[in-house]
């Protein structure tokens, strides 16, 4: 197995863990964290291909930097949403957030 394959398997595993968490857990914060993990898995791929492609292009690194910024924005907005939902429902379980009107 080449290192590249191992890297890709790592990112694939991380993505699945994040996906499983996002699908099974009822807690909004954990779902958000699962989504973050999936984002991270994508970043891992970028870096792995940049490292092992052997080409001069550094687009992978640049893309990961942008992705980090977007992940930060996503976390900020997502957690703000969680707090807003909590204020209405007194709960952060996604099953409880069923009313459209707060």
């Amino acid at each position, binding site marked *: 197995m*080449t*290192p*590249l394959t*191992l*890297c890709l*398997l*790592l990112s694939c*595993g*991380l*993505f*699945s*863990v*994040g*996906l*499983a*968490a996002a*699908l*099974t*857990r009822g807690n909004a*914060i*954990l779902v*958000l*964290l699962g989504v*973050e*993990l999936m984002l*991270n898995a994508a*970043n*891992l791929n970028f*870096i*792995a291909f940049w*490292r*092992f*492609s*052997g080409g*001069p292009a*550094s687009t992978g*690194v*640049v893309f*990961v*930097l*942008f992705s*980090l*910024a*977007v*992940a*930060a*924005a996503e*976390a*900020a*907005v997502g*957690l*703000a949403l*969680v*707090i*807003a939902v*909590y*204020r209405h429902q007194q*709960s*952060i379980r996604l*099953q409880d957030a069923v009313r459209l009107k707060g």
Partner: protein
Amino acid sequence: MILALLLITLLILASAAVAMVLRNLIHSALLLVLSWCGIAAFYLWAGAEFVAFAQILVYVGAISMVVLFAVLLTRPARDAELSVPAVTVLRVAAGLMAAGMVASILGLAVLTTRFSGAATRAPQLTVKDLGALLAGPHAAALLVTGVILTVALLGAVLIAAPAPAPRPEDHS
């Protein structure tokens, strides 16, 4: 080299998986921080120094703080947690099956693909090169990212800011 990669893989996957299973949110958040640190270690391993430090700064320094803050601000009421049954078995099974299928498809795809030109040496990328790239060809994207971050920050403040105090008749 491959041993270090294996260790990092183990660290990332184990801490992420355990974090996603734990009931205690604080524990999961802290374990996820460990996982993020592992990812930073992977970047270091791959030679992307700058990205690794940025990852730590953004994830460990900022996102984990916000997550912990959100956890502390949203303590579930005791009775609510007890009365509503936890996630149903069916749901868990369906979620795990979906994730497993995704994992197997991706894994099969990775294992069956032949990648060309496996470089043995990490490409050299200094911070200066990176800066030139960001300010040169990717300047537009950088600006857009800045705008997104600003808008996200303002939006987050707006969403999370407490609504104006309810009128007395709203209280039941």
